[in-house]
């Protein structure tokens, strides 16, 4: 049973548009929420991450919004570019886990059209 639920499974957005991917979790012990980006033929790579002490984190065109009470977090890609076309995975882990094991969502394939 997936501990982190991710939606949508795929989305198509025009260049310049906003891509939004949502994730939800149940385990309140989770306190670290990274997003990984995977291009075809490559392994996932850390994109951006957030901890529950802040409600938003922004790095360039990528923003994570975090709602602790709803146990939800989302990735917003502003001004989407064709180079952002990739699969995005949300994940969660607990700082109490010294090995940093991650629970991944199912992934969202994002296609940005020119």
């Amino acid at each position: 049973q997936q501990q982190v639920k991710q939606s949508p499974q795929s989305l198509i957005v025009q260049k310049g548009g906003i891509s939004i991917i949502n994730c939800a979790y149940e385990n309140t012990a989770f306190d670290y929420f990274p997003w990984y980006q995977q291009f075809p033929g490559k392994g996932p790579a850390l994109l951006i991450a957030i901890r529950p002490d802040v409600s938003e984190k922004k790095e360039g065109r990528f923003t994570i919004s975090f709602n602790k009470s709803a146990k939800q977090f989302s990735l917003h890609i502003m001004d989407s570019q064709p180079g952002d076309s990739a699969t995005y995975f949300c994940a969660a882990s607990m700082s109490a886990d010294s090995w940093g094991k991650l629970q991944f969502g199912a992934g969202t394939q994002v296609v940005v059209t020119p």
Partner: protein
Amino acid sequence: DVKVTQSSRYLVKRTGEKVFLECVQDMDHENMFWYRQDPGLGLRLIYFSYDVKMKEKGDIPEGYSVSREKKERFSLILESASTNQTSMYLCASSFPPKNIQYFGAGTRLSVL
């Protein structure tokens, strides 16, 4: 730059064969992980290791085993491959306390 290298990009094996997937990292990371990636299921943890000869089961260890004889190398073993083990296999490594996971490019295994 951290480099995690998986020995094969593509493998085709027959049902019942013993299969070895190899992973090497060059950053002296303590933790190493094996995942399988399937459409609609994301990445699921098979096994991980936090030190040489130390291993722990992940969420889906059935049908798999692992070996870590040297710190830089982590092997995934399919003792008797089955068709339901056809998948993309990803290796990752990390080090505390940040525990950012660095992934290899993956091995696509087909079991016929």
